């Protein structure tokens, strides 16, 4: 039964990864770019919440609500200043530019906040400590449940937004053919900027969850980026529900891996990711066919 419980905890963990991955998936879906500073932006979001908590003495949730508009503006500005230019310069430039940005964010955070680890667990109230024991050795923590519910709500809301609203159609139209979208009156620059703003806001939500679930420091970003990217790839790049499932698969792989050996948790996630890459792109199918 501990294995089943481990899998359950994996689902909760995976919901967190899915939230982290969501913004990455949006930006890849709309602009076909991977933002290598995505993890650092999530951590930046956590620090913004942290600062508000420290200065205003409010609960972490209120602080997050206050941080959200800041992150939306940040995302919008990031797109029109840095990403828009890099998009025009070929497929490698966005990677190079965002990798540079990643280093800048990490080290600015070090300068502003020292390299010490921080946590917002204390200012999130009883949520971080309460849990329920179910039959069969299963345990459900309030926080895990909240993260899972929020993740499903975020993905559901995004799905509705893209399927039902005109702005959602504009985003899909621009993603599929930006040139044709311009010709029917869609301002693709603005669509891109809003997509990045959304992605950054949701990344901040991921950073917020990181901060109340565990600890973070200025260099936590790259790890979050890797997990987020793994979730996106495992779920099949460019599909929203796929990203949610990919995150959960990654979480389950990690918690099951931890059953083998505590140090093996992250490794199991990496291996799942590499296997998916090999099967999907790495000629794994050809190998299987040849073997038959």
């Amino acid at each position, binding site marked *: 039964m501990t294995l089943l419980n481990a899998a359950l905890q994996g689902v909760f963990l995976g919901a967190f990864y899915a939230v982290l991955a969501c913004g990455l998936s949006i930006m890849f879906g709309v602009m076909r770019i991977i933002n290598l500073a995505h993890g650092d932006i999530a951590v930046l979001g956590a620090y913004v919440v942290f600062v508000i908590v420290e200065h205003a003495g409010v609960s972490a949730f209120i602080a997050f609500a206050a941080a959200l508009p800041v992150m939306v503006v940040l995302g919008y500005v990031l797109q029109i200043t840095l990403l828009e230019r890099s998009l025009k310069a070929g497929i490698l430039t966005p990677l190079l530019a965002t990798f540079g940005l990643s280093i800048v964010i990490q080290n600015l955070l070090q300068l502003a906040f020292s390299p010490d680890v921080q946590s917002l667990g204390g200012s999130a109230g009883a949520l971080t400590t309460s849990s329920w024991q179910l039959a069969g050795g299963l345990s459900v923590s309030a926080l895990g449940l909240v993260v899972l519910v929020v993740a499903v709500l975020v993905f559901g809301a995004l799905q509705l937004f893209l399927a039902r609203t005109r702005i959602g*159609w*504009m985003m*899909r139209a621009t993603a599929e053919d930006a040139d044709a979208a311009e*010709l029917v009156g869609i301002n693709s620059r603005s669509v891109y900027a809003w997509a990045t703003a959304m992605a950054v806001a949701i990344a901040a939500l991921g950073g917020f969850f990181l901060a109340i679930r565990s600890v973070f420091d200025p260099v936590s970003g790259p790890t979050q980026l890797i997990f987020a990217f793994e979730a996106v790839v495992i779920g099949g790049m460019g599909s929203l529900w796929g990203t949610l499932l990919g995150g959960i698969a990654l979480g389950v792989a990690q918690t099951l891996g931890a059953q083998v050996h505590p140090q093996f948790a992250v490794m199991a996630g990496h291996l799942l990711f590499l296997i998916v890459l090999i099967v999907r792109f790495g000629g794994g199918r050809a190998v299987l066919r040849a073997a038959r």
Partner: protein
Amino acid sequence: MTLLNVEALDCRYGLLQAVRSVSLRVEAGETVALIGANGAGKTTLLRAVAGAHRPHSGRVVFDGVDITRLPAHRRVALGIALVPEGRRLFPSLTVEENLRVAASRRRRGPWNVQSVLEVFPMLQQRRRRPAASLSGGEQQAVAIGRALMSNPRLLLLDEVSLGLAPIVVDAVYRSLAGIISEGSTVLLVEQDLTRALRVAGRVVCLLEGRVVLEEAAGGLDRDRVVNAYFGLRRPA
């Protein structure tokens, strides 16, 4: 009244010069056909007018306003709409979504989802189907309808008959005739000379990026058009 005035337009792709010093006027209410061999620069010229291609030099003036530096989506708001070559629908969007997504900068006018579906009745049944699942003729109808959704004052059509069966082309042109008769201004690229001469009031022929012939369609000698088309005997 001159609706569109193209002045000494030069368009380049890197070192390749697609349009060379082309000047062109389109009067309000007129239908002008652009003809010419493959690579003559017709598509590039239309894209430059629509704002999808930034010209190297020259000016595009629409209704007295210099729009040379305006991005495509702002030109839509002014009343220019292009039906691009190859239709370029948004494949995952339904027919209706393809139409409605194009209405974000619509001007006041007769066109809306309802009136477009009346002109292209075959789309009525397909409203909720994704564009990718339509036949070529249906896709072309959606592409034209999508352009109409903004209620353009100038409609640019790029090879709407390309890749379609003749019977489908007839249907598309019947619908177009209705649209043209309502007083729209149209600049169209058409490979089929006979069809171009039938629908247009005036014909402009491009050869290697230059205008080599510009004349009223009525009473136009077919041989002269063919000569201009292939550059056999250039008019002085």
